[in-house]
């Protein structure tokens, strides 16, 4: 066991962990932020996606020892009150069904929009095809990413719709 400082959503958490423990379990069970999900544990589904210094990573496949003191953002850090444009778009387009995969999808989409404010279908495919939604919300995820892109560029026009 080693003590690590984890900087999650701007807060510091001092955690005692096995250096090999995946970041996913440190976030969920040591920092008690359960919005980040376990889906496969082998970097196949994206349910565990968080941002590491602004880049999306699969927290199930990053050991906690590798990320100490770096900037980690989880779904709770996207915004707690659903004020992020993507969260609003997700609500507007009624994306989630069971909802279990959606934290990961939102985090991947947030990283995408930061990089490419108006992604094409192809760019959405590339950024999002590493994630699984068993409920099949893909058509709405695509739509909501575009809605969010609109909201960010023309916030007033979209609100008035």
């Amino acid at each position: 066991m080693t003590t690590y400082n984890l900087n999650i959503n701007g807060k510091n958490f001092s955690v005692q962990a096995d250096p090999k423990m995946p970041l996913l379990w440190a976030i969920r069970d040591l920092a008690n932020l359960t919005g980040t999900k376990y889906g496969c544990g082998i970097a196949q589904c994206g349910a565990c996606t968080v941002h590491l210094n602004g880049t999306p990573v699969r927290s199930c496949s990053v050991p906690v020892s590798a990320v100490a003191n770096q900037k980690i953002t989880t779904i709770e850090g996207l915004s707690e009150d659903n004020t992020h444009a993507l969260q609003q778009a997700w609500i507007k387009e009624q994306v989630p069904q069971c909802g279990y995969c959606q934290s990961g999808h939102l985090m991947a989409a947030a990283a995408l929009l930061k990089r490419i404010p108006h992604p094409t279908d192809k760019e959405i495919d590339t950024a999002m095809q590493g994630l699984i939604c068993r409920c099949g919300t893909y058509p709405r995820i695509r739509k909501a990413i575009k809605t969010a892109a609109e909201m960010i560029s023309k916030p007033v026009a979209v609100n008035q719709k």
Partner: protein
Amino acid sequence: MSLTNKNISRRKFVTVSSLSSMAFTIGFYFPAASKGIGEIITAQNADEKGIELSAWISIDAAGIVTLLNHRSEMGQGSFQTVPQIIAEELEVDLDKVKITFAPGNSKKFGSQITGGSSTVRGSYKALLQTGAAAREMLIAAAAKNWNVAPTECYAALGMVIHRSSGKKLGYGTLVAAAAKMPIPKQVVLKERKDYKLIGNPLQRQDIPLKTNGKAIFGLDKKIPGMLYAVVERNPRFQGKIKSLDDSAAKAMPGVKQVVKVAMPVFGFTREGVAVVADSLWTAMQARKLLKIEWDDEGFEHLSTEKLYGRMREDLNKPGLTQRKGGNFDAHFQNSANQLDLVYETPYESHSCMEPLNCIAHVQGDHCEVWGPIQGPDWVQSDISQRLKIPIENVTVNMTFLGGGFGRKAFTDYTFEAVLISKEMKAPVQVVWTREDDMTQGPFRPGAVYGCKGSIQNGAIESFQVKMAAQNMDQQAAGADKTKFNGSTSEGFAEAYFKSIPNYRFADIPTESPIPVMWWRSVYSSTNGFAFESFIDEMAHAAKKDPLDFRRSHLAGKRYQVVLDQLEKMTNWKNRSKNDGWGIAITECFKTIVGEAVKVSKNAEGKMVIDKVIAVMDCGWYVNPDIIQAQIEGSIVMALGAATVHETHFEDGKAVEKNFNTYPMPRINEIPAIEVHIIDNQENAGGVGEPALPAFAPALCNAIFNLTGKRIRKLPFKLSEV
């Protein structure tokens, strides 16, 4: 209060005040003897009668309405749909309503199983009546207060309003008086055209919880003092533990205990070794250090090859007839225009996005569980029976479910957690890894269908389907294996039975130790492929247009309307010859679905699905946006099972363990999906499952239309067509 209202036809109304004199609570309960619709009661004197009230609606003195949702929320929208129905007749704004999950209790709520797409179709009439009864009592209370006739008043947005004077009273101020009002003998329900909530695409109230990480799924639930367990279970389903060396696991810091556990799975027990630790990660690590030898004697170690060989062979047997009309044998044998074809469908894992998990806490003769549970009342009675404790000592708490699809209706994982907690004398959360979840089953049974039929004068003269597949109902110890599978013809549009003069549906139950269980749309999920592929082949043999052929065999307005709509949305008559179009029509859980698929070859010559059109007639419905989402989801799930994944068995074990070998459709593989929902006044049918079965046959029929190649075995790779 006496039972004066005993003679109200079919349903009794009772008032009760046990909860609080300051709240008005009304719901319905299912008397032991009744099947179907329950009886409506309020909370005034159920105690005297010893009735446990199903608190559907509770209005407190502050006017806050709490609705109890008795169904699981696993993604299908019951969190929204059930309250939307009640609020319509209660005349409250859905935004002012709090929704809580009802704990498992079959006495109170009747069947709570979220399966068979039954949430709405099984209870909507009782829900409407309950809301209306509460509204009438609130109106009566206000009218009495104003000393006017109830007919002079109406209710809107949580208030009773006196029409001529405009006087208003909020529901909150009326609760004490309303609880004392007699329950109306009859309530007039609104007409569809007057609905304000029902029929509208209202936003789901659970969605904001699912966009900021706040929704608590089973895996997120934490109980004070909770320990974590993972279990190494027998990979061959039925083997016994021969020897166990747990010394290394026990030596790991944080490990509390290693316990043997035997989880009941249908007629067998699945043996396993549970590692219990103070954290999930520790339990997972220690599990890898277990040394277990299994005794796997006494049952078959099947492979997929052997299993399907057996099913194909079984088609030579006469089978157990489930449904027949006319004389198939005589007409088929004498026909010059015969078809004799075999269709095959794979075993599948449910692979809910949230792997199985459950927290149990056994304390003496009491037991409480928390988890993603599809059938809380089943879990309650299962635990009560197996632990031999009174049912009221068992509390089942539902969390959000990260998918269910039938898997989380089964009580193996819940009772396994109970056994481990009992041993540990502490609350324990048992977590299945993805690998556990994917390899342990129960699976959707694969099936081989032998289809025979003949054509005469351009129409079906004879039609026979023999299904060789495991019968889910025959897994219990001592099950009657001479009984036919009641679901053999499930998925076949009812109108076909009227137009086909000679038909027979039979099944040959496959013997196998592999556990099988409902998977979204159950037998229809595989039947639909055989039925509607075969119908298409018959249309071709009859030299008929596939849509016209179905039209001529599906008399009845509902079928014709669905076909009209498909024809319109596909522009069927004028479709381009360069496109491949296929259609299929299925019926399951009282809902008729027609789907059309368009395929083409892309620049690299690869088959792509351009578009899927789905037309659903589910009768009376609540929320069209939720229905559309369910149709989209069903089509994506069907696409996976038709073209992406399959569970194989080798040496008695499931081969695919995680999403690397059991892949899922991804966002870049999803075609455009267009949905149309038919508006009519028919009884409500299912919504969450019925759009699944028609997809695979419509797709394969489209590929035939484009290429002339028939696909009779699922799954297949689109890239290899």
